[in-house]
């Protein structure tokens, strides 16, 4: 009977109850959604680069190296000589290396000089390899492969000629006009910095800098492309390189050896560890989001309590009737508390369903547009705890109208003034 009363009483006030329910559902959607996205973002962030055991660059902080080598942000402190690179690449523990050469850009997007090994060894997420949406890897000196976002934002298609600017600003006065590159491949979205990168061969980087010195073209005639192709384009130095090992057990040994390298000061970092550390620096933002969501939830719950309190006035008659047939004050208390719990439970269920629908609709969009791969199922072990927490919190907030109902029941008697 108690349940029937609570249910029918809510149904009787369905317009206000529905609004309260919607606001509850939205806060549940926000809370669970943010929790889900946070988990997904952390997973995907810490897997921006997977399958690579070490990243080696000139001596610097591990964050700095991570930022410029993986996120193409900031600037390298120094370069690594080609000889050092070759020596470490020849180390018996090393399975493969991918050189990275940075320093140029195209309309704000960083240009990365590398080898075709990059497309083979770069892994992200659960060891996803890079995939070509269109075209192929670079082959010629003047071939370029675009990240998904570069192609989308600039509207580039295969066959397009692009000019690389010297330096990394979006506006540059020193441009490698004589050596345009041709787009031969476009990568599928990955949700990693790869999407924002223009990839060319190491030789390409070398070629555009022929006849350059001190960051500006020397006077005099520039060699034409055919002459360039005939030259030895082995670079003197690179910015950093990725290392894959035969055995992961060797990671720390090799890292120590590289950090102690005699010929020049080098730093080797474990990308997974560095990424996790970087994420922890961002935890502030994450917690802030949580606090905001919690506030939204609290506001909805207080809104619900307000709705119930306001309804107590129109329910004075109901209270008098229930008292007359023998309901105790405690019965009224539990009736209102049950209504609160019912609303909260519906809110949690509705919010979860809503979130599933939102994810289901948004997932293909996020995947194709941004390369964000989000798990469809927002339910995890902790989701149940969060849901339980929301209902419990609702119960606590509901104590206010329930207590008022209890007091009313005892003080108003059978004939309240209307």
């Amino acid at each position: 009977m108690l349940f029937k009363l609570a249910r029918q009483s809510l149904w009787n006030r369905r317009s206000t109850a529905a609004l309260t329910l919607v606001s509850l559902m939205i806060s549940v959607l926000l809370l669970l959604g943010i929790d889900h996205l946070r988990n997904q973002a952390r997973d995907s962030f810490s897997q921006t680069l997977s399958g690579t055991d070490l990243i080696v660059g000139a001596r610097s902080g591990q964050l700095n190296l991570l930022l410029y080598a993986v996120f193409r942000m900031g600037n390298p402190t120094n370069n690594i000589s080609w000889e050092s690179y070759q020596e470490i690449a020849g180390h018996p523990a090393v399975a493969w290396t991918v050189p990275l050469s940075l320093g140029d850009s195209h309309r704000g997007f960083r240009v990365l000089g590398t080898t075709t090994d990059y497309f083979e060894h770069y892994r992200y997420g659960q060891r996803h390899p890079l995939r070509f949406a269109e075209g192929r890897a670079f082959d010629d000196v003047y071939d370029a492969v675009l990240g998904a976002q570069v192609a989308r934002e600039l509207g580039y298609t295969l066959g397009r000629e692009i000019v690389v600017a010297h330096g990394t600003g979006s506006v540059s006065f020193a441009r490698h006009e004589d050596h345009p590159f041709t787009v031969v491949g476009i990568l599928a979205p990955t949700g990693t910095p790869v999407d924002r990168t223009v990839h060319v061969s190491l030789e390409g980087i070398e070629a555009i800098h022929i006849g350059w010195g001190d960051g500006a073209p020397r006077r005099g005639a520039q060699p034409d492309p055919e002459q360039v192709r005939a030259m030895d384009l082995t670079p003197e130095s690179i910015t950093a390189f990725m290392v894959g090992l035969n055995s992961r057990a060797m990671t720390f040994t090799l890292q120590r050896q590289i950090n102690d390298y005699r010929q020049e000061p080098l730093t080797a970092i474990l990308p997974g560890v560095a990424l996790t550390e970087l994420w922890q620096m961002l935890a502030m933002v994450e917690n802030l989001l949580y606090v905001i969501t919690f506030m939204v939830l609290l506001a909805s719950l207080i809104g619900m309590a307000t709705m119930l309190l306001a309804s107590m006035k129109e329910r004075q008659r109901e209270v008098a009737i229930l008292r007359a047939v023998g309901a105790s004050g405690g019965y009224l208390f539990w009736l209102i508390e049950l209504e609160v719990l019912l609303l909260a439970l519906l809110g949690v269920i509705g919010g979860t369903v809503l979130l599933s629908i939102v994810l289901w609709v948004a997932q293909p969009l996020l995947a194709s547009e941004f390369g964000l791969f989000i798990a469809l199922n927002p339910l995890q072990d902790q989701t149940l705890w969060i849901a339980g927490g929301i209902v419990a919190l609702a119960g606590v907030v509901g104590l206010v109208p329930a207590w008022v109902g209890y007091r009313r029941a005892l003080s108003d008697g059978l004939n309240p003034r209307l």
Partner: protein
Amino acid sequence: MDKSARNSVPEPAIALRDVSFGWSRSAPPLLRIESLAIARGERVFLYGPSGSGKTSLLNLLAGVNLPQSGDITLLGEKLNRLSGRKRDRFRARHIGVVFQQFNLIPYLSVLDNVLLAAHFARLPGPESHARARELLAHLGLEDALATRPARTLSVGQQQRVAVARALVAEPEILLADEPTSALDSDTRDAFIELLLASAARNNTTLVFVSHDRALQPHFSRALDVRELVHQGETA
């Protein structure tokens, strides 16, 4: 009162002795009744204009409010000695109440409104169902109405459902607080006859409170609240 006395002399359904009632102890009491006794099965017309303390008296008789002093004895049970919970239980089992209007929970069906009283009196389900249907039929409410929400009924029909609700647990005492004031004169007399007949069927003690003296001839005994009640000076 001990048990032997209770068995030998038919004790009154309602007995008040030296009762005074007010909202706070410092203020003069709103209500003071030296003595009142209503026998079982009696049908009493309690007359009084508004402001004479009828509502306070009703709350006292129903055990919703407690007197500051004195005893209220219903069916041999001193209400003022019972805990709040026990008084609520006592009310559910032994007292039926009919208000002047809005007796029903509007969103519940007619049948559920009646069963609500049975629920609080802890009557077994099948028995209360049968009794509710029987009462509704007796009060001239056809079966088809039973499942309709109470708010869709006319005022006259609602008042009759209220009587069914008040009587479903077969209470010894029925308190009616101006139950006819919302009815027009044609339906009023019919309603009172129906109420009296229903009360008589169960030998229910009826206390009927009204400001309308025209209803007095229906009752075996009439009391003027003003003569009964010595109100505090401020009220």
